[in-house]
């Protein structure tokens, strides 16, 4: 079994753990962190699979994809955190499924 597969399968595991967090965790911050974990899992899969070249030189395209993915994740995370922060300041809630007082907006 090639080494890269350990990382690839590990990446899949990390992705799934992140998915569970994003789905099931109640707290908004936990969800944001869950999404970040998902991203890390994908990056691991990408890098691991880029290592399958016959000459051992890592394929640069997955690396570029990971770099782009990181920036996108940073952007999504920042936006998520600032929305969560503002929502908490306004309503005192850290959970999206509870109705804020005097507001029913689903």
């Amino acid at each position, binding site marked *: 079994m090639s080494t890269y597969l350990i990382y690839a399968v590990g990446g899949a595991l990390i992705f799934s753990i992140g998915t569970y967090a994003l*789905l099931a965790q109640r707290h908004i911050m936990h969800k944001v962190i869950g999404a970040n974990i998902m991203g890390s899992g994908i990056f691991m899969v990408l890098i691991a699979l880029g290592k399958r070249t016959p000459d051992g030189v890592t394929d640069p395209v997955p690396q570029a994809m990971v770099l782009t993915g990181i920036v996108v994740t940073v952007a999504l995370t920042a936006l998520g955190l600032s929305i969560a922060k503002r929502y908490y300041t306004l309503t005192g809630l850290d959970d999206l*499924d509870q109705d804020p007082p*005097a507001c029913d907006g689903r």
Partner: protein
Amino acid sequence: MTSAFTGTGAFTFGLDETSIPFLALFAVVWLLSGLYTAITTPAADRPRLFAYYVPSAVGGIGVAAASDAVSFYLCFALMALPAWGLITHTRSAESRRAGAIYLTLTVVGEALLLAALVLLVVETGTTSLPGYRDAIAGLPSAALITTLVLATIALKIGMLPLSGILSLTYTYTPTGPAAALAGASTKVGALAMLRLLPAGGMPPGWADAVMVLGLTTAFGAAVLGVLTDHPRAVLGYSSASQMGLVLIAAGAGLSDTNAATLAYGAVVTYALHHGLAKAALVLGDDVVQRLSGRRARSVALAALALPALALVGAPLTSGFVAKYALKDAVHAVGGDISAAVYVGLSWAAVGTAALMLRFFALTLQPRETTPGNARGAALVWGLLLMLVATATWMWPSDWNQHAISSAFSLSSLWAALWPGLIALGVWGVIARIVPGGTRYRAVVEPGDLLTMVARGASRWAARADRPRPVAAGRSEARSSSLAEPLLGAERGYLRWTIAATTFVLVALALAWLALG
């Protein structure tokens, strides 16, 4: 297969032997009714009325000239939908309800027609309209197409149990547009029969079933109409009854190619005759109300007898020719049922005669007279009456020749007369024994069943719609028995974990398919 909108198969108009008579009829009726509307409507109301009238008229004329499925459907809808604005013009609660019923049935009709047309386009491989009637019987889904077309027509012509639709629309629409609806709108149903019902080739049961349907409508609508007490409502039921007869003619042509040729003539003649006569009746009722002088009123009433007699099928009227053509067509079908229908046809005339008597009784009733340009109105009406008297006889075609040639045989004259006499006799008896004489109170309100259903529905909706006390800016969902579980289901689903997990499950399902 032609793509419907690449420019070649869509938006073509042309003339053929079917479109010419209908085009002539629609053009005359829409034009004269429009003139009448312009003369009689107060200037302030005109823009609003014509904003709906003109598109409807364009659609009405277009539907006759359309020679492909797409423009037929387009014009069909263009004529039918703006008519809603005509019906609700007075904005009274009744007219709004009538409008709602009309719109609902129209939209349902559009959906049915669309389905039929799509099937036709797909199975014949062409959008060209004139060829459909000969091709339908050979198509794989001939039965489905025919059923869909019949259902569309049923909504258009007020087949039982939907007969109320015509009386509803006639009653609340202003006179001029009402005449257009009476003269042209229902005749689109007849046009659809010629364009989209198979000309022969269907199993015999089809002809029998449709003829029986038509006869039932002819009688049922007549009974309902006699029991109403608004002259326009009576005319509406009379239209439903008469269109039942037209349906008999169309039904006669479903199975037998020979009968189809005769049926074709009958439908055209009948549509022509009835369109002009019914428009003349609607306008006439109004003209009588407008005339103030006693002499003028008497003359007008006498003139009003012409279209009424024509509807009954009295000798020398247009109705005589039409009914003759109809009987020919039914006779050509053969079989027990058609024989029974043949007999029924004569008795249907009794119903028509009764309706006309009821109409006259109601018209004679003193109502508040409408001021306005009585002379102009009468002039337009007179023009229409001249056409009623002559059009069917003068129409250059071979299908009225037979009727004309045998118009003066004694037997046919008698056949045309006796139903009227019976109706008169019954009428005389009623005038004696029923309280209120011939002006008895209504038992049926315009729209009968439909109005009842609509009222029930709006009562239900009102209960469900009642705004509950609003707490803290929160507007409550409707509380009707059906709405709450559906809204609740959605609200429950919208919770993040449930919805997002459902999405992941969808993604998993897709991935599973991919691993397949």
